[in-house]
């Protein structure tokens, strides 16, 4: 049924222990500073552990990106589930989030204790400003591929304008832009023509 799951020449591998899933993602979660978690994941899952080949890794990344949630945690959940089912997913998610989560919790306690400390606010203001610069660079890097066609630019501008200009709920924004984008990119040749629908205007 599923060709991707049956490599012909290998003997059936024993199940991966849950603690190995947990510690693998714990290491990624503890060392992936400064974004770019995908590169760390690829190193660990494809090169070091060989739990996925390159194609499987790209498929999992594709799924993680198409779904709500963060790429890093979605991937830890999906890979954990493929290795050991829901328990594996839980082990992956916990490993991925525990180091950073505990550090952030410690920082939250310190933040509450130093409420009103001007030095702390200066440092955080500097970090916030630096983060804006980083986020801008990442957004431009991801977005510049999209900026070649008018309809992509239109969708990007419409989404930004709706969210930033009118402050509606994100639910409403998605209910407007997602159907519109699906209509724009709808499959062209899939449906049998009943003779009534107009021909596509932008056929080459």
């Amino acid at each position, binding site marked *: 049924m599923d060709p991707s799951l049956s490599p012909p020449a290998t003997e059936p591998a024993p199940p991966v222990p849950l603690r190995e899933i947990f510690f693998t993602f714990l290491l*990624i979660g*503890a060392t992936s*500073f400064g*974004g770019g978690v995908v590169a760390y994941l690829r190193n660990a899952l494809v090169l070091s552990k060989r739990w996925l080949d390159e194609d499987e890794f790209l498929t999992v990344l594709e*799924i993680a990106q*198409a779904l709500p*949630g*963060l*790429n*890093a*945690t979605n991937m830890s*959940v*999906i890979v954990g*589930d*493929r290795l050991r089912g*829901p328990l594996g*997913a839980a082990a992956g*998610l916990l490993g*991925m*989030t525990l*180091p*950073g989560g505990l550090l952030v*919790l410690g*920082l*939250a306690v310190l*933040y509450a204790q130093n409420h009103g400390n001007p030095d702390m*606010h*200066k440092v*955080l*203001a*500097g*970090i*916030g*400003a*630096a983060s*804006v*610069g*980083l*986020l*801008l*660079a*990442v*957004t*431009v890097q*991801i*977005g510049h591929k*999209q900026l070649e066609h008018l309809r992509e*630019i239109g*969708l*990007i501008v419409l*989404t930004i304008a709706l969210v*930033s200009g009118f402050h509606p709920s*994100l639910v409403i924004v*998605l209910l407007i*832009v*997602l159907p519109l*984008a*699906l209509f724009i*990119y709808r*499959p062209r040749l899939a449906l049998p023509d009943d003779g009534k629908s107009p021909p596509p205007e932008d056929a080459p």
Partner: protein
Amino acid sequence: MNDTDLSILGVFSLLSVLAIGGGTAVLPEMKMLTVEVHHWLTDSQFRDVYSLGQVAPGPNMLMVIVIGYHVAGFTGALLAFGGFFLPASVIAIGASRLWNRFEGSVWREALQRALAPIVVGLMGAGLIAIARTAIVGVETSLIAAAVFGLVYFGPRINPALLILAGGAVGFFTLS
């Protein structure tokens, strides 16, 4: 669980299922719900919380833990964490198991192409939301511009170092 605990769980569960293309997409909604609707944070506290989340390794939205702790202590931290990560994870398991069934489906491809510009737009809107509170004068503008220039045009530097450098520059230059 009291009403505040339930609100934390509700807010972050909603954000979890709306986070299309990553956490940045829900920053405007998170700011609106936590600052304007529930008054859990002030504008500048939201900036502080975002900054705290930036220095941690791993996924970049662990700031939800700080918000939860700020509102309702350790219970709040746990509820914000669970609310933000569990719903998306359950969806991920289900979708990943179904994914191969739609192999080659024209609608799967259409959905992926449709999401790409929306994700960029939502990232842009998230950027604007955080810039509105984090860029407050000449110094912060210069810090942001310098980091952008270094990441976009400069040599490969771990962005975490730039974030920490931004904190140091802020300590010495901001008043």
